[in-house]
């Protein structure tokens, strides 16, 4: 069984408009090259799921008008400040927001991974988040533990998980090391698309040390090689974020026009307006 190896645009074309796409946070494995391809294609009405938060890729997709819904525990560009296009979209009311909390997102994905309809989660009771969610309910411990109310979180099944891995092999396996949230995301989703920095020459599953951090091909719909594919975000263990570039983004994305210039310059391959 051999893997489906796409180029980046073909990979992005496997994400139809309107689907639920799970994305990792900036400190995990972000398929930024594929995000740019999605924007170039003019993807629409995506439902983003930040696992458990989403950063730069979410802000760009929102700014480019690709997003209808954001389901996440946070949209954050960390120390760079508030996510500018997200903040503007919330103010304008142009994206639907489904606010969650990290462990509930993990639990919902783990429920999908296990093929069960829901999973209990501690905490949350008394948070205003609960009132907003029809996919969270308050139940209790059926074994009569004295734990009082317990939130039950409905399974979250992404149509697509989109991630970037440091390595993948010709058999279609992708290495993610300890960034195991991407394993759960791949297990939970109907299909998973992976971009990767480098081709691993061999079978990741045949090496006991590599296998422990490898998502098996079984879960992957297609892969695309993308050297430096997480840029300008960093990739764990491989390269740091491009600090200058992210600061430039923050500067330019303050306004609609600035953000369009950013897209022209760095995504749409048009001459920058600067």
């Amino acid at each position: 069984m051999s893997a489906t190896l796409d180029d980046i645009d073909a990979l992005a074309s496997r994400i139809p408009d309107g689907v639920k796409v799970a994305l990792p946070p900036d400190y995990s494995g972000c398929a930024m090259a594929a995000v740019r391809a999605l924007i170039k294609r003019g993807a629409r009405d995506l439902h983003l799921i930040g696992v458990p938060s989403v950063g730069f890729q979410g802000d760009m997709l929102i700014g480019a008008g690709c997003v209808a819904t954001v389901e996440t525990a946070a949209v954050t560009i960390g120390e760079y400040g508030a996510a500018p296009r997200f903040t503007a979209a919330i103010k304008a009311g142009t994206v639907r927001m489904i606010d969650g909390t990290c462990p509930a997102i993990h639990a919902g994905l783990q429920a999908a991974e296990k093929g069960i309809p829901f999973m209990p989660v501690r905490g949350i009771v008394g948070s205003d988040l609960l009132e907003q969610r029809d996919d969270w309910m308050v139940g209790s411990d059926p074994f009569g533990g004295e734990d009082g109310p317990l939130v039950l979180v409905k399974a979250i099944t992404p149509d697509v998980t989109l991630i970037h891995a440091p390595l993948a092999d010709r058999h279609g396996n992708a290495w993610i090391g300890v960034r195991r949230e991407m394993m759960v995301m791949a297990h939970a989703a109907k299909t998973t698309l992976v971009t990767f920095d480098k081709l691993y020459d061999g079978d990741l599953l045949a090496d006991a040390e590599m296998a422990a951090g490898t998502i098996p091909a079984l879960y992957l719909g297609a892969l695309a090689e993308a050297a430096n594919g997480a840029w300008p975000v960093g990739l764990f263990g491989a390269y740091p974020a491009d600090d200058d570039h992210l600061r430039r983004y923050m500067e330019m994305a303050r306004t609609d026009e600035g953000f369009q210039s950013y897209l022209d310059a760095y995504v749409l391959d048009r001459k920058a307006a600067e």
Partner: protein
Amino acid sequence: MTPDPQADFLPEELLISTVADMLDGLGHVAIGASSPIPGGAALLARARNGGNLRVSMLGSEDHNAFTNGGTELFDCAAQGRIDAFFLGGGQIDGAANINLVGIGDYPQTKVRFPGSFGSAYLYFLVPRVILFREEHTPRVLVPKVDFISAPGTSEPDVYRPGGPYALVTGRCVFAFDKDRKRFRLSSIHPGHAIEEVREMTGFDFDLPDTVGETPAPAPETLALIRGRVADEIAETYPAFAARVFGDNADAA
């Protein structure tokens, strides 16, 4: 927090020292993203406790022993394997409710914060949650938060081994009284005054008869902060370390 020209330490150093005092004797402290001062405090507490404090710092490669992905911190917390954690808040009110979502009517808030992260969970499960927010203004410390990301207290039937322990700001330290469900002013940082704290705090709080000054870092503590802690925190927060410790000779 404006530096006190009389002091021989920086405001950040006072905060690191103050928070570290709250961590002595604990077994495992976890620190979320974008938290250089809590991170420094945890590293200081570890250094002072002969290394017998486990520090799990999000974003760090040296100080992060998790191997099960994003869920492990939360699973650990629910099992009681984490003794202290830090939360902030775009708004914090007098009942220790925190708002990480936004100001105004949800969902189309006038001001949008990043989101609740794990607060709606960790605030319930970690025994000693330290609220940390340098900005101490009526804008942040409000009578009632616009959105409760995580409540400060719960009904008795809610499973809640954890909750707020203290609120540390750039002006003072509040302790949280779980029975009264209110903050009590605990100490005021050098160079600040009770009247100022009262004025800049949007919520009502308890005021003991005497309120002392937040203790200045002892010389050994300052040495540890400027030495080992500064080195260790630089791995995760290079910009912070450069800004605060890069020329700490000037501060002395």
